């Protein structure tokens, strides 16, 4: 965390000093979970926005809801925050049923919406004041908290200006302050960092982490920045077409993709090398990613699959199959394409999935290549990220 944040974050200690534990326990049949849904379903006419969603979020966790546009993330948040009612299924937030005890749920949560929802003609201060009044906080308390929060989100200078004069980042920060004003035990943030510059984005993440470490705050958020989710979430859930497709900690999801991937670039007897690769036990799968064929000095992109990353499993149709089968299918496909195109002197990229750690396999792999008439020009290591997990489970179609 940037050092300059340190001092301001101490402010948070005072804001969130009171003990959150116990707050959740007041729920009727207090479970372990801050958020719990089962079979949650919501349709808009023919569009099934959320279909039988089962979620469990532990108290104090940061849960990131990921998914392509139109996957149902916002609808899920709307259901959990009692903005809309479910067609079917159950949802409990802070131990309260969203349908039967919406008032209690609303008292326990703070929300920021995907779209900016601020009244443009009010000043920042007035807007926060009105928010506090809606929650029936005493005037003195509202004033105190405004001072503290505004310092936190660095809006002191503009606080008495109408919101319409704020920049996009200022508006986002004001919304965050508004969400925190009522000291919620569960915070819902729908794309909190969208449209923010890197500085602001980092600050917001730092605030959130700090808030969590001070009190027992549970956060559920959505984001399209997978690197952020990977870095900060305890658990991510990827949803697509209203269904949860996969859930787990970022590390475990990435690990489930298999081990590291080595990219070899080189030229030579491709057919022989591929045959040799197939024989090795320590190679799980491999794929010829692209070929650039040198002809009279001009270079042409090969006709096969995209270069980057281990996207062996790309389309939803293959999503269910194991990495290995999908990859070998890709191999078949590229083999036919390349057999026609390859000419002597062509440079080839091969992506190789290993069964063991990459560091120890580089040398044997290069040796294997050279023994089989394939001259290696470059070796690079690719570790899978949450991006790969995302594409594996949601495919790459354009949505909406």
């Amino acid at each position: 965390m940037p050092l300059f944040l340190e001092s301001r974050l101490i402010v948070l200690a005072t804001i969130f000093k009171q003990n959150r534990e116990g707050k959740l326990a007041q729920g009727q049949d207090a479970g372990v979970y801050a958020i719990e849904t089962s079979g949650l379903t919501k349709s808009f006419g023919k569009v099934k926005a959320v279909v039988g969603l089962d979620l469990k979020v532990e108290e104090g966790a940061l849960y990131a809801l990921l998914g392509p546009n139109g996957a149902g993330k916002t609808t899920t948040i709307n259901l959990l925050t009692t903005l809309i009612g479910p067609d079917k299924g159950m949802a409990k937030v802070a131990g309260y049923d969203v349908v039967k005890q919406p008032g209690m749920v609303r008292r326990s949560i703070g929300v920021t919406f995907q779209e900016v929802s601020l009244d443009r003609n009010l000043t920042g201060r007035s807007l926060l004041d009105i928010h506090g009044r809606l929650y029936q906080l005493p005037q003195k308390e509202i004033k105190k908290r405004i001072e503290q929060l505004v310092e936190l989100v660095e809006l002191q200078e503009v606080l008495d200006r109408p919101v319409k004069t704020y920049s996009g980042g200022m508006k986002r920060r004001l919304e965050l302050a508004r969400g925190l004003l009522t000291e919620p035990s569960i915070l819902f943030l729908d794309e909190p960092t969208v449209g923010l510059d890197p500085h602001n984005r980092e600050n917001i993440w730092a605030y959130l982490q700090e808030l969590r470490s001070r009190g027992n705050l549970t956060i559920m958020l959505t984001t399209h920045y997978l690197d952020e989710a990977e870095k900060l979430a305890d658990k991510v859930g990827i949803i697509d077409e209203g269904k949860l497709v996969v859930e787990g900690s970022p590390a475990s999801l990435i690990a489930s993709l298999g081990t590291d991937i080595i990219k070899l670039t080189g030229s030579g007897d491709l057919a022989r090398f591929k045959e040799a690769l197939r024989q090795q036990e320590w190679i799980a799968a491999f794929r010829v990613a692209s070929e650039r064929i040198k002809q009279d000095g001009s270079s042409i992109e090969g006709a096969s699959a995209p270069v980057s990353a281990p996207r062996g499993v790309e389309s939803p149709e293959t999503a269910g199959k194991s990495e290995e089968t999908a990859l070998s299918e890709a191999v078949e496909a590229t083999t036919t394409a390349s057999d026609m195109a390859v000419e002597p002197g062509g440079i080839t990229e091969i992506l190789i999935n290993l069964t063991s750690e990459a560091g120890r396999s580089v040398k044997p792999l290069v040796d294997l290549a050279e023994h089989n008439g394939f001259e290696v020009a470059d070796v690079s290591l690719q570790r899978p990220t949450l991006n790969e997990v995302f594409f594996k489970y949601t495919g790459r179609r354009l949505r909406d």
Partner: protein
Amino acid sequence: MATVLKNRAIAAPKEPGEWNGLLAGIYTLWLKHMRKFRSSPVEVLFTLATPVLWILFFGICMTGMVVPTQTGLGYQAFITPGVMLLTGLTASILGGTTLLLERVNGTLKEYLVAPIPRLAVLLGSMTSGLTKAVLQAIAVLVAGAVLDSTLQFRILPFLAALTIVGVYSLGFVGLASAFASQAKSMESYHSLIMVMNLPVLFISNALYPLEKMPVTIRGLAMLNPTTYGVDACRILLYGSKPEIGLGIDLVVLAAFMVLGIYIGYRSFSSVMQKIGA
């Protein structure tokens, strides 16, 4: 499930603290709308300028053209009650605009996830609309008294007339809320309002007496709440000879108010039901 949701739409408070939430919600929304009203002098000026211009120009210029009516009032005095009600109508429409704007710009969501009942959102908007209507009616009364010697500052008649404006405006606040809850956009809201606005003024006894109207128009005017409001205000403010009668006026206006609020409530809760909240 569907029926359960229907009954739940914006039912009476059940959970603990909901009555407090209702009052706090109404007050907070009212406060917010008043702050916005105060901080936009243009809105205040425009709504005040219209009625004053009516009294000043239309009143003064028409005075030479019109023969005295059976009400026994000068023309300027004759139109003052109508203009006052017109201001109430304009303010009611603005109240609806507030609700619509908050729906469109997403502020409504802030209220819907706050611990206040849905009903507070509607009642808060209605209350602020009503307040604006009454404030502006006061301004018209003052302007009327300044510009016209037949209208004297007297507390009781003024209060009575303001009550009439309040009751009349509440009816329209309800209707405006109904439109605002359903309207797809600002444009469609305003075109609806424009269609409603003019006949409400012209097909009434606000600018000409009932006795001078063709029979069909008089029939239509009798369906217009403005006619009853104008008659009541003339009686209360000037002690003029009734065209209809204070008793009937009051009954009709009260009925209109209840109907308007009811329609507003129905429309708002049907929208809330649609989102299943």
